[in-house]
């Protein structure tokens, strides 16, 4: 059933808010919408994050070594503060770690530091991890974790007491082979979170090939072109704690790919969530949700599958947003060096044109993985952060231009396109990383979005947003009652400072990562926000007035404001 077909309930809700004031109240400068915002590294000594990714690097250079890993902001203990999860490698058919490798769950201490609670939580893992997707799949109010692996994936159910239980086989979301991204979204609008899992190539130790350049004496990481594509998975949530594999009947399995990033969004505004999937060396997929549990792949027709000369590129990270404010979701995909990244502008008829603007020349020599549209300066429009790193650690032996470790890039949405503001956005942008996953979240609850980056074979990077909250903001925690628990597909519309804006709550995006589920609406220098309208995936529309700004507000579908139980 589509949104259009549903009864639309409109409720005007008066608000009672108990939130926590932000430190931004003391930092804000009146009317300042263009003050410099920077991202500052939070050192491990301060954050307490001492964990380092092990990429299992070997002389043979098995492909999974260079692909991982992911990371997430999540609130696993429902204390209102973003915790951190980091994915690690582990034993596999080509790798036997000499020491025990663990994922990491860091609990937020509410003071800028974190405590490692991995073992207590039972999330150490023990597989060759890739990515993580966080959501409350069973609607019990607690965030669960789905970990993708090179090897069988794992679903951890949150027990609500700081511990997790593996339920993969029990609930029916087991997979074969090598998975990368996973996305929780409700494709049939039944109020339950379904699960898309992107598959990478057919690969195991027996299929490993030694790729040796004629000018080199060492193996390099093989380009995935030589491996066969695999179909991805779609699991339907039955609502009784179990899932059904609907990959075939939905049409998803009919398009085998070499999939990395995936994002669920609604590109044709029909109220049904579609999927954009980046593929490496084969065409990208745009799966249009036709309703009735069916998807149709239209990447070619939509002109988002290939380069302008019909060449499949090395798609990795993806995201979706309405960057130009026309009410239609645009798409982004990062590729490998020399291929340029693509910003696909929605032409409102299921076709797209690639209009990267300033992003084009800036990304010519880069290989992009984690990426996210988010409003880092709270001015109301989505900006873009790109995390880069070449997959081949020997690339510098082949060319002097392309580097293995690459810089981050930050683009500000100027209203007329994206402007590269990396140089003035903090010292971290002058550094190079082997970046992979990237999650966005407000870990210090100050009203501006911070960033977590997982680096291949290195320590993660936690970046604190300094100054984004000089602008006014409104934080929303959407609590669904009828819609899916993550409120994926909700459309939030707000007006501040005379400007009307909207945001679709998408799912997935970036690379191997999961993000803060809350929404921060940037108000710029606007001091009021009226009204805020939420069109829930169920079709219900809640209109909220007199919302207090510069604090988080919990909005319950059809009920209005609920008290927040935590304060800073």
């Amino acid at each position, binding site marked *: 059933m589509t949104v259009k077909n549903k009864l639309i309930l409109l409720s005007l809700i008066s608000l009672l808010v108990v939130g926590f004031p932000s430190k931004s109240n003391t930092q804000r400068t009146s009317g300042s919408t263009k003050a410099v915002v920077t991202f500052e590294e939070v050192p491990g000594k301060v954050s307490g994050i001492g964990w380092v990714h092990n990429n299992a690097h070997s002389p043979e250079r098995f492909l999974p070594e260079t692909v991982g890993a992911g990371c997430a902001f999540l609130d696993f203990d429902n204390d209102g503060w973003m915790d951190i999860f980091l994915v690690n490698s582990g034993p596999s058919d080509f790798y036997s770690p000499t020491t025990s490798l663990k994922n990491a769950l860091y609990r937020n201490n509410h003071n800028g530091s974190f405590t490692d609670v991995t073992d207590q939580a039972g999330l150490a893992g023990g597989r060759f991890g890739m990515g993580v997707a966080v959501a409350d799949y069973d609607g019990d109010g607690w965030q669960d974790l789905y970990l993708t692996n090179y090897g069988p994936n794992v679903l951890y159910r949150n027990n609500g007491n700081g511990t997790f239980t593996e339920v993969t086989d029990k609930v029916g979301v087991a997979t074969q082979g090598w998975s990368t991204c996973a996305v929780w979204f409700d494709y049939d609008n039944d109020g339950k979170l379904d699960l898309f899992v992107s598959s990478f190539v057919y690969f195991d130790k027996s299929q490993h090939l030694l790729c040796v350049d004629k000018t080199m004496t060492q193996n390099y990481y093989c380009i995935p072109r030589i491996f066969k594509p695999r179909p991805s998975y779609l699991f339907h949530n039955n609502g009784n704690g179990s899932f059904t594999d609907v990959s075939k009947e939905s049409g998803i399995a009919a398009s085998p790919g070499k999939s990395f990033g995936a994002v669920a969004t609604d590109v044709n505004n029909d109220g049904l969530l579609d999927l954009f999937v980046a593929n490496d060396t084969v065409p990208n997929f745009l799966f249009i949700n036709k309703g009735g549990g069916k998807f149709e792949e239209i990447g070619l*027709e939509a002109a988002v599958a290939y380069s302008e*000369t019909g060449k499949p590129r090395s798609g990795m990270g993806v995201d979706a947003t309405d960057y130009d404010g026309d009410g239609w979701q645009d798409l982004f995909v990062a590729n490998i060096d020399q291929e340029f990244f693509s910003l696909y502008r929605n032409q409102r008829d299921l076709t797209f*044109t690639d209009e990267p603007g300033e992003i084009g020349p800036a990304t010519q020599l880069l290989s992009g993985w984690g990426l996210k549209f988010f409003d880092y300066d709270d001015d109301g429009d989505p900006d873009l952060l790109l995390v880069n790193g070449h997959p081949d650690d020997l690339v510098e032996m082949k060319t002097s231009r392309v580097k293995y470790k690459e810089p981050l890039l930050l683009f500000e949405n100027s209203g007329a396109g994206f402007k590269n503001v990396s140089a003035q956005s903090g010292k971290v942008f002058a550094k190079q990383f082997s970046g992979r996953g990237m999650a966005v979240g407000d870990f210090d609850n100050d009203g501006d979005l911070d960033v977590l980056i997982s680096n291949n074979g290195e320590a993660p990077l936690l970046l604190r947003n300094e100054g984004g909250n000089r602008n006014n903001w409104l934080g929303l925690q959407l609590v669904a009652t009828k819609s899916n628990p993550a409120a994926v597909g909700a459309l939030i519309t707000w007006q501040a400072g005379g400007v009307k804006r909207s945001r679709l709550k998408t799912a997935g995006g970036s690379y191997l990562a999961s993000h803060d589920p809350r929404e921060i609406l940037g108000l710029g220098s606007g001091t009021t926000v009226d009204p805020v309208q939420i069109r829930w995936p169920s079709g219900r529309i809640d209109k909220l007035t007199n919302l207090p700004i510069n604090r988080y507000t919990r909005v319950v579908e059809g009920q209005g404001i609920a008290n927040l139980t935590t304060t800073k």
Partner: protein
Amino acid sequence: MIACAVLTLTLHSTSAQGDTYTKRLERAATLIVENRLDEAEKQLVSLLRVAPNRAAALDLLGTVRAKQGRLDEAGTLFKRAIRADNQLIGAHLNLAYLYLLKGMPEKTALELKEVLRLDPDNADASYKLAWLLLSQARLDECISLIEKLQQSRPLTVPMLIVLGDAHVKKGNIDQAEKAYLAISEQSQNADALLGMARVSQSRRNLNAALEYLQRAKEFLADSPDRLYKFAAAAFGLNLNDDAIWALRRAIKIRPDEPSYYLVLGIVQLALKNPDLQDAEESFRECLKRQPGNAQARLHLGYVLLKQKKYPDAQVWLEKSIQKQTRSPEAFYYLGLIAQEQNENEKAIELFQKAIQLEPAFAYAHIALGAVHLKLKNYTRAQQELEIGVKINPQSSKAHYNLAILYARLKDPQRAQEEMRIIEKLKSEGKTQENEVDTLAPAAPR
């Protein structure tokens, strides 16, 4: 170059004059050769103070000015010398070289012809004029000049090379071979071997061409001209690494020659994995030395376009059109920029202009088709794309756009067929990744 001519020609022509004057003039010439320009200048100014219209002194002072980089003053002095003595060959020759230095080939040729009128046996002027005509692609004039000379005396090796090169450029492969073989009988000459490489290449005898090229490599020594010719021949044989090696060496020896950078950039673009930044640098270096070089402007615009640096690319392409108003490539590239910037109507106009200038410009048709596809003018898109494919069946861009078109027209079978063509072209190594290169000017041969 100018100073040497002065020594040989001016002194000869002044020998009949008074001893003191001649000695002072000789002294000034020696000082010029020793690069003691201030002293030479004093000597000559002193001479001219007494006799302001002494042609030889004016000619020598012009030489001093030329060596001081004061080219306009030098030109005025050479002209005054000629007015004072129209028979003064040295002054004509110096003026010719000065014009060459200032990038005025027409005037150079006129002066060289004047030298030959005064002294038909002047080997230096003959050679320089033949070389100049060749470099200006005035091939018939060049060949006629040399053949006329040949009637009176045997041709020198350099002249035979110019003759051979002119015949190659004109497509007279047999005559070119004859000229080169005449040299080979005299000596192992790198230019002749390079010429033979091009003759063999023209005859599609690639093994022979490669062999000549390899033999020539041994005799290149440190001659930038030869290195340049070697690079051009190597480029023609797709030996791009060799071409880059030779050009870099030529640049090291003669860093001020703009054409070396231009060709280097072109070769860098032709690499299997083109290094766009390197090519950009090369074109910029060329333009530093020769700001008005239209080809360098066009190529720089193109390479910036390839890097999606559209505003900068647009500036250079528009500059190239100022010099070459009928360049279909420039209009095509500007059209691509307009298309990328969503200025679709402007893009259509520019592609149509490119097609008007070159009706068989496949990529302009394809790009025009792509804009119509973007604008959902599917009938027009199909027309243009099909014209493009007809002219160039190996264009993956055309097949790709047709695939999108058929997919949108709900003809998935034909869409897949187009994609299969791309796959096939790719597997056969026939796809043209850098399709916008197609009409780009080739390296000078």
